[in-house]
């Protein structure tokens, strides 16, 4: 039912985690989750998920492809706390232990339409060199207590990270009722505005 005075706006995210570029590693899989503010609530779709493990192909040497679909709809009353996609990539190390290969986050694009984001990835560093060695040896690399910390700014100053490759995500964004609530998220196509009238 279409109401003239909506009280929430909707944000629909369709897209996929296309793949990653980790030149040194192979056999990786990716976990994703959304981080959003107090006023946001997912109405449909999966909030978090985990991809298959993928290996590098023999010919296209550098790309790891997941093509993992994302489909979520959020509702909100407030643009503050706009959803962010947090991805973390894992894979086996030399000894076969499952270790983290990268964390990264990006905001869901604001404007309706198609977007592609390349998320730079990073991992926390061990505090000192011996620890680096033992963590390598034992396969217990430093990890974030929660992957969601990469979506928040607070407290990051105590960590030290190393960059580690890229994950490519494509988004198709649709919004509903944002304009009616007074939020203009940029250039909307003229066709769009006409259809509203």
């Amino acid at each position, binding site marked *: 039912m279409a109401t003239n*005075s*909506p*009280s*929430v*706006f909707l944000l629909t995210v369709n897209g996929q985690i296309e793949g990653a570029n980790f030149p040194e590693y192979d056999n990786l899989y990716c976990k994703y989750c959304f981080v959003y503010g*107090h*006023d946001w*609530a997912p109405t449909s779709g999966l909030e978090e998920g985990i991809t298959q493990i993928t290996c590098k192909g023999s010919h296209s040497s550098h790309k790891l492809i997941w093509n993992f679909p994302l489909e979520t709809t959020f509702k909100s*009353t*407030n643009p*503050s706390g706009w959803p962010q996609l947090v991805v973390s990539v894992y894979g086996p190390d030399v000894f076969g232990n499952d270790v983290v290969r990268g964390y990264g986050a990006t905001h869901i694009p604001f404007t309706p339409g198609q977007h592609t984001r390349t998320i730079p990835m990073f991992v*926390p560093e*061990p*505090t*000192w060199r*011996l*620890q680096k060695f*033992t*963590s390598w*040896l*034992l396969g*217990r690399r*430093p*990890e*974030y*207590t*929660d992957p*969601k*910390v990469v979506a928040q700014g*607070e*407290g*990051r*100053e*105590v*960590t030290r990270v190393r960059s580690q490759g890229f994950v490519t995500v494509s988004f198709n964004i649709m919004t509903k009722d944002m304009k009616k*609530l007074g939020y203009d998220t940029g250039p909307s196509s003229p066709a769009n505005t006409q259809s509203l009238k």
Partner: protein
Amino acid sequence: MLCLLGLSSRIQHTSGSQHLDDFVTRRLEEKLRAARVNTTSFLHTLGQVQRSSKTSKTGNHIAIILRTNCVVFICLFILIMQTQAGKGLPTAEEAYNFFTFNFEPEPQDESEKISRKRQKKKKAAEEDRDEEGGEGVEEQEDAESEEAPLVRDEEEDLFVIEQSSQDFLEVKKAEYIGYRKRVQQESELLFTPSFRTADPEGDYQLDVDVSGLIFSHHPLFSREHVLGARLAQLYDQHLTRQHNNLTGHLTDKVNFISRLSVGQSLTQAITMSSIFVCFSPECRRNTRQLRDSEQEKDRTLLKNIVKVWKEIKALRDFQKFTNTPYKLYLRRENVDRSSDEREYEDEILAEVVELEAESEEDYQRKFAEYKKQLEEWKLWRRKQRKKKKKGQAQDDTEEEDEDQEGSESEGPVEEGPPKPEPPEKPDFDSIEQQVREKASRIRRKPGEAILIPELSASGNITASELCPRAEIARREDVSRRSLFIKILYNDKEVSRTDSRSLNTDFRVHFGQIFNLKIVNCPQSINLQVFEEIGSSCSLLAQVFVPVPEPSVVMGNIPLEEFEFSSNQRVMFDHEGVGSDVPLSFEADGSNKQTLLTSGKLSCCVSWGIGEDDVPLAPPVSQQPVGIHSGLGRLDAVTYIGASGLYDMKKIGEWATQSRLDPNDPKNASIMQLLKVASSGEVTAPEYFRLEQLQEEFNFVTDEELERSKRFRLLRLRNQEVAEFRNYKGVPALEREVTDKVFQDYEKRLKEGEIIDTKEHLDSHRALVAKYLQKIRESVINRFILAKHHYLLSDLVVEEEIPSIGGAGSGILGINLFKLAEPKRPLKPQRKERKKVTAQNLSDGDIKLLINIIRAFEVPVRRPQTNKPGQSSQSAIQGSDWLLGQVQVRPFVEVSFQRTVLQTTTADGPNPCWNEELQLPFSAPNGDYSAASLQSVKDEVFINIFDEVVYETGVVIHTRVEKHWLGSVKIPFSTIYSQSRIDGTFKVNTPAVLLGYSKELSHGTNGGYDTLRSLSEGVFITLFITIDPQLVPGESIREKVNHFDSQEDEHLLQASERFERDAAQAYPDRPCITTIIDLNGKTVFITRYIRPLNPPQELLDAFPNNPQETTALVARFVSLIPSLPDRVSFSGACDLWSTCDQFLTLLAGDEEEHAVLLCNYFLSMGKKAWLIIGTAIPEGPTAYVLTCEQNHNYLIWNPSSGQCYGQHETFCPLQTVGSLVNADNVWFNIQEYTSPMTMSFDVTKTNLWKPFFSRTFSHPGLSSVQPDELVYRRTDKAAAAELQDRIEKILKEKIMEWRPRHPTRWNRYCTTTLKQFLPKLELSGGRDMAEGHRHELQSLLGDNRISGFPLHMPFSEIRPIIEAVYSTGVHHVQASNVEFALAVYVHPYPNNVLSVWVYLASLVRT
């Protein structure tokens, strides 16, 4: 020229672009390089350029630019500097060098015009290193040639200065010391004199701001200082003259007047008649004279400055060291010679013309006079002659001989007027000569550079080691001196500044503001300057400061300088010149001067401003009314009064009436002010606005923003206010925010002070609860702040580094072996789990895991065989009993946050369940922060029930009933802070359990009896933890030394050392030596131990039985409600209250209970210690140890009032860390920590390490406890009232919990129970069930009763309700059930209340 034009046009086109930056940078670099390569070649080029004019060689650009226009160039430079700021090219230094480049004087054949323009650039020279170079010589020559015409006296060649290039350096800005920086800091220095009040109601405050003082002469001045001071003084004079620019003003005036007098017309004269009076020729002459004298003064001043500077330099050369940092530079401002000459000539001519005109006029006037006189004289002469003719023969002489005759006849004619002399014709030549002479004396020569002296204090002072001994002695003497200022108000010393040492520059900075709270009328304010040498001090000078006007308030007046001087005679045997001692700078000792100590004190006195911006000044009884006389008009202050100075209107009136000269530079500021005021604008703000565009960017006004409910909601959520901390879904639109949202919050704010007596039933406890609530809130707020500080471990999980050979996690190799460990071992061990900080959690994430393992000695059902005619189930039971089978079918029910889970039912009195229950946990308001979790007050109730199966009727219909047998309650805060609880607990069983008995197995296993007699009661083995494991909120590590303390520093250090050593050697043994009291101060622990009297009533209760008395006292202490500090103070710090505070608050944790109990025992003559240790389930806690006869030690749990023997099995105390009594603290250094396996003989130092020993003896610490405790009488009436209210509330609650069934109350049973309860209280809750049961049984024969009394200390109603609910009595669903409820409140002294609730259900059979 072309090049410059090109440049500037480019700037216009591409201004601000990158292109320009690059371009200009490159250009400048080139020029810089070119200019610096070689000055001579540059000069050469310059010459070439001059001759062959515009060439386009890049090397010449600079010369062209330089010559063209200085202003344009500087603008260009500024532009470059701005755009280049980030790039560093050219660097500031380069740019500086570029500008201060020392251009050579050009050859004399250069044309004059160019020379002058170039000289404009020459305001600065290279750094000192160039001094000795050839440039310096050239410079000197240059200077000489330039200044030759300036100096009139050829011998006094003032400008022969050796180091001229140094003198012509670019001047640095004088350093400014912000005196008023620390203005508000000293505001606490208040003084209140206490006699003769001025105005009793008045609250007046006088602010005396003592900024600092500068000596213009001090006995310790060296000669150089004397000269330096003189130079500074002259320079100051010069600056003020420069600022006033009187000469310029007068010159203008003269010009104006002369112009006016020339083209003066009648109309003008009429319109300006009012002011024309002053434009008369006399006025003009006066003005000119004034102007001349001013010019002369300027000139002399300049000369003097240069002279003194020369003297300083000579002195410095002579004495070979430098004492003052003064440096004088003479900046030359070159003038266009031809125009200057023209002007000069014009002026001279004008003056000459004027003078000529004047003298002509004068001559004319004189001549007219002369003519008149001559006429008179002739007349007289004629008369004489007539007389002569009459008297003598008339001889006709010719007219032309008249003169001669007259002269001849002068002699005899005595009384006649003398013949007037004709006035001299004015000598115009001499006038001109005079004018020129004067001009050359007092004015600058035409075309000569204007010299602007600039004084800086940037020079270096020679280091002390390089000075002669006498100078070193002087400097040492200086460093010994220090100064302070006493402030005398009405001749009473009210305050004094800190003592500040005298600096080498003889300036002292105090920068202190004294706020004088004054009570009596201000009469005098006197500042006395004292000088301190070592310990002696002497009065140097006094400064009387006028009492300020009432309108003079803090902050709106500048600092004033008051001069002071002293005529003390001081002489030294070192370089110091002394005071009142003749001193000569001449070589031959002539021209002696005597200098007195003097200086300037910079301070200001003003009235303070009150909170509502009202000056805190006493009212002036007689405000001086402005006198409207002509005299008063000229002085603004007498005209409008000082207070009027801040009134624009009045100033405006005054300005128009007094006909201020708007062109007088003196009046410039006031005219500016009036202009601003009259143009309708408000006075220019005196503050600096940081975000001056903020207002433009505000899209709504602040008030509107304030009104917005949605915004308020968002803001409160952001501030993490408890109610809104996790508020979800703030509505999108303003209108959708209901007021309801704020109701709770506003209610809380409003009712902060109102005490809810309904909730607490007792006003005293309500007050205490409110107080604790406030403390808790403030602590929680602190935690919210601290939550935003993160540690690495909060964010990153990292494997512990395996320590090699350490005691902890083992050797690296062992860790490697772990790799080979089986994934699922057969006998798994509990592993340390990952700790989770509670920041990303939400509802449902946290679970409470409760592992119920087994129970011992559950009471069994009492066989009811002795009564015939029982129902079927009793027969079954009977048969059970006979068969020796099931006597009880216990199961465990755990309730937490109203979630109830239960285990399966087991059989027998020693059941084994081994089951894990998972209870969800939700934090208040969905806030999972550490602070919030710590303040969770919920408790886990673990209840043991007996499942009873009834079979009713012929048709088999089983009905299951559960009968409560006992419970354990564990606060969530304990689980949270300990992270796990593992052990065997004693179950709280009711004193009377109808239908059950404990004495189960008589004779079955007799060997056990001895042990069992010691361990009376029911026990349950549990393991409780939280999943995921939460990090206990101890992120705020407020160390003890952060709190202030009144303890001795040595003691604190020793205690810190003691605790550190203890923690290192035995990390798991708690050791406390210092604690924090309620005021937040650190106190040594032994101060808390002191014998204190228990209430007399308790001692009187059992006069002959000391054991009973002891038990009663322990019971009394245990009846004071427990409130863990962790709950009340969120674990930030463990605050200890003293016993009287504890008894007033009626709440405290184990430590307070233990201290009180220990003190009672001590006063009862026992040997008692405080045990600091760990126990289950409390964790770190305090118990009491007493030594009975024959060295039996008893361990008392102060919160339950129970005592245990040293060797008792189920003593909750697990670890003994240290013992404390009034004299000492002992730390346990034995092998074991369990009380069973250790010795309590503290005299053995190999087992107990004492804090105070022979090496560090007890310093005799006095106790913080009161001498005696005073108890309030018991209030029986209040207790009875409370009893009724509790009963009423509980009845309502039980009916509320049974919404579907009617709840009937059996009054008969209730009264019976009610009579029974006081007996229970008297017996101290110990078993007296047998008689009671029989009594009940006989009374209520055919009813099946199950019920039990609950006992607890009274704190508030909520725990009572919770306890009743957890027993589940209300769950009985039989249709014919009746209930009986009795409440009894027993009052103990000091409002300590013991509450009994007897709840029973009766089923008619």
